[in-house]
């Protein structure tokens, strides 16, 4: 636990991220470029044809969108239980990123579905779950914005995040149940052929690194903004 608190100090975090950020940024670009190259040059799937490319763009987005909320929940737990000072800032910084990845997942999911279903949206179980996840992000961000006192906003948002994260599996379960009841269409199932693994893993790594990079940048910005504000207040 102690190493976590070492970087609770904004000053230490800035020093750490000074080193890590450029590395992460470069790694992100490398992974995404390589991943996209492989995604487009991969042989067509016997079932999905060339739209298999969209799988490499869509599924990692969904996974990161999901992971981001877990990240927010973990930060919220740190904030509430251990009063880790930077975790409120970190949680708040992660939320818009998670929301954007969710939207990306929804758009790419719809684009992927069009060739198969004929229309962009047929209430596929996964996409519907992610649509609800988007609302959870929006509610979280709205709560942060609505409460004026930043400390109180952070704690309230932390409570909400932890309740929401517990509900996410329940929501997923209920949407899956609903989908079988109404026999909706599904995007995909089944395993991934080995030839598809390199682009998938590269894109997965690329998206995660992208999230990490942008997240660190946002936390740094928040720290700097607060410093600037403190200077202005006491000037």
């Amino acid at each position: 636990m102690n190493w976590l608190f070492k970087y609770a100090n904004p000053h230490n975090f800035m020093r750490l991220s000074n080193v890590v950020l450029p590395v992460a940024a470069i790694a992100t670009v490398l992974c995404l470029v390589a991943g996209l190259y492989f995604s487009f040059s991969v042989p067509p799937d016997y079932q999905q044809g060339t739209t298999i490319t969209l799988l490499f763009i869509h599924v990692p987005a969904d996974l990161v969108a999901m992971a981001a909320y877990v990240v927010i929940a973990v930060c919220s737990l740190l904030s509430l239980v251990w009063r880790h000072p930077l975790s409120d800032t970190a949680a708040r910084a992660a939320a818009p990123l998670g929301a954007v990845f969710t939207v990306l997942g929804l758009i790419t999911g719809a684009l992927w579905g069009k060739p198969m279903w004929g229309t962009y949206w047929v209430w596929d179980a996964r996409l519907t779950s992610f649509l609800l996840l988007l609302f959870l992000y929006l509610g979280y961000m709205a709560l942060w914005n609505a409460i004026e006192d930043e400390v109180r906003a952070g704690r309230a948002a932390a409570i909400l995040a932890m309740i929401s994260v517990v509900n996410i599996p329940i929501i997923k379960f209920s949407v899956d149940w609903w989908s079988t009841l109404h026999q909706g269409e599904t995007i995909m199932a089944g395993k991934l052929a080995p030839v598809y693994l390199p682009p998938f893993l590269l894109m997965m790594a690329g998206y995660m690194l992208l999230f990490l990079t942008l997240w660190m940048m946002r936390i740094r910005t928040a720290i700097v903004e607060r410093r600037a504000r403190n200077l202005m207040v006491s000037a």
Partner: protein
Amino acid sequence: MSPFLTLLTRDIKLAARSGGGAALALSFFALVATLMPLGVGADLKLLARIAGGVLWVGAVLAALLSLDRLFQGDFEDGSLELIALSPLSLEMTSFAKIAAHWLSTGLPLTLLSPLLALMFNLAPAPMAILFVSLLLGTPAVSAVGAIGASLTLSLKRGGLILPLIILPLLAPVVIFGAGAVAAVSDGMAGTGALELLGAFAVAAVLLSPFAAAASVRLNLGN
């Protein structure tokens, strides 16, 4: 009277004396049920098919109407501090408020539902299931709503954020509740859905007082 019942009866009394208590929620519920056929047409077979979903969504929205004031009224006039200092724990306080909200909103909505179901040409069997599903599910709506209400109790216009926060969390309730009705309409058993709904409701009612109490503590600490 025990402190718990004291608070419960006071909240019900207050709900009754301001704005006619359940009347607002019931009218809203009936209005939604009236607007829907105006929107989708009066094809009775269609209405019977969508009845479960429409009435469930309508009930949830109607129950939402009075949720933002659940803690806010007491917070604004200083009663919440006095209640917090009483022998009644904040968890039991939240539970009492959830119960009062259900008794003054969720339960009346449930009781009105058969009449509205009739307007939607719902057959007797699914109508009964709708009733049972609302009976099981509306406490969950009050419970989850209490979490949102306690988080937003300090906000002047918290009423706009409250639905955004709790409606995604209520998706399972709507899914299982309306799903039960749909299943029975199609001749299948609705018990599976009702069991899932009941499980969610029990969990929500038992756990949300703790979350709501945490939020109240957070807001009182200022």
